[in-house]
């Protein structure tokens, strides 16, 4: 089976795929730098069972959430609005933000978060800005120090 990075990457449009690859790549380089400099947080994460393979999966999920899921969810947040619901928004020649679109985006977001929660990952890890922040939150969480 393809890994998480490849599964998510393959479904993206070319322009978003490039951004996704760049962000995951940057997070991977940050992890390698942390490893080379004997970063204490990274050591603690590894001691807690977070292998580089696992951390790579978190970086892929984090990047996918920030580049794709969260921005798409932005316009589909609340049911019952006038604009984007009963009054569709036509954005340029091709884009249409309406009730049907909002419904399918909300279903996607809900399913993604269900999958994430089932894996015990948690939203905080998805919203970390950098690999260092992600590792920091991961260690705090697993040591029971994250409120």
């Amino acid at each position: 089976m393809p890994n998480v990075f490849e599964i998510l990457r393959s479904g993206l449009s070319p322009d978003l795929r490039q951004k996704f690859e760049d962000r995951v790549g940057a997070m991977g380089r940050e992890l390698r730098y942390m490893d080379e400099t004997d970063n204490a947080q990274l050591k603690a994460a590894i001691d807690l069972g977070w292998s580089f393979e696992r951390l790579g999966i978190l970086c892929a999920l984090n990047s996918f959430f920030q580049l794709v899921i969260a921005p798409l969810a932005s316009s589909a947040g609340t049911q019952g609005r006038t604009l984007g619901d009963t009054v569709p928004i036509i954005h340029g020649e091709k884009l249409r933000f309406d009730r049907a679109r909002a419904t399918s985006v909300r279903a996607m977001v809900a399913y993604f978060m269900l999958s994430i929660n089932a894996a015990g990952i948690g939203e905080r890890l998805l919203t970390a800005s950098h690999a260092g922040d992600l590792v920091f939150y991961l260690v705090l969480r697993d040591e029971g120090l994250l409120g």
Partner: protein
Amino acid sequence: MTEAWVAAVEDRIQDFAARFSAVYSVSEREVAASFEIGCFHALLDSYEDSCDLAPQNLNKTGEYRYLTTPSGNPANFSFVALRRKVATTAEYELRQQVRIRSHIHDDIMVTPDLVVLRTNSAFGGSRDADYAGGKRGLFVVNSAQVIAAHECKSLPPFPELLVSFLGILEVVHPWFDHLHADLVSNASDGIHLAPSLFVGGASRALQSRMADALRERFPVNMILGLHSVGWDIMGRPLRRLPSALN
């Protein structure tokens, strides 16, 4: 051999992709548009208590035509009229991607993502030899008509992004006096949000402190972490412009 946790996550993500790749296989432009529309909704939410919100200039089938570029004539696109609920003639327009000409110099023009204008603003449209070879009209609103301009950035915040927003504050808001910035920023009796930077990405602790400091010293809002904190911005401490500016 793949460990159980990794295999389980791969299974779940494979299942997710099979169900929803048609929904998320969209262009970068659509993702950016979606975020901007989220900001547009959040800004409208801030007017719900004080104004009746009325979409105007819809197309023939009742759809809202969202202006996506300053090259379009705003008069041909939709906007939201903001009409005070209290007895007053005050009325404003929330528009998108309208080019603003600065009061500082005629050649300083910028296009904020969202802008609240006084109603019935003129959009210009004269030709300029340095724009599109003089073949198309240059649509622009004088900054005297601007109540507040807002920017939307889906990316994580960084110090230079926060500070650069002060440039928008300076060049498109004639009411802004940088020598007395703190006086304006301490007011909170108006209906309009102060010029706001909407940011999707989460901030680090130092950036959050910087955003708070900028909001304290300038009449702006730095609304960070929308992807993580959420879109109900009204629960946050927000600057509003004093009613005297309306």
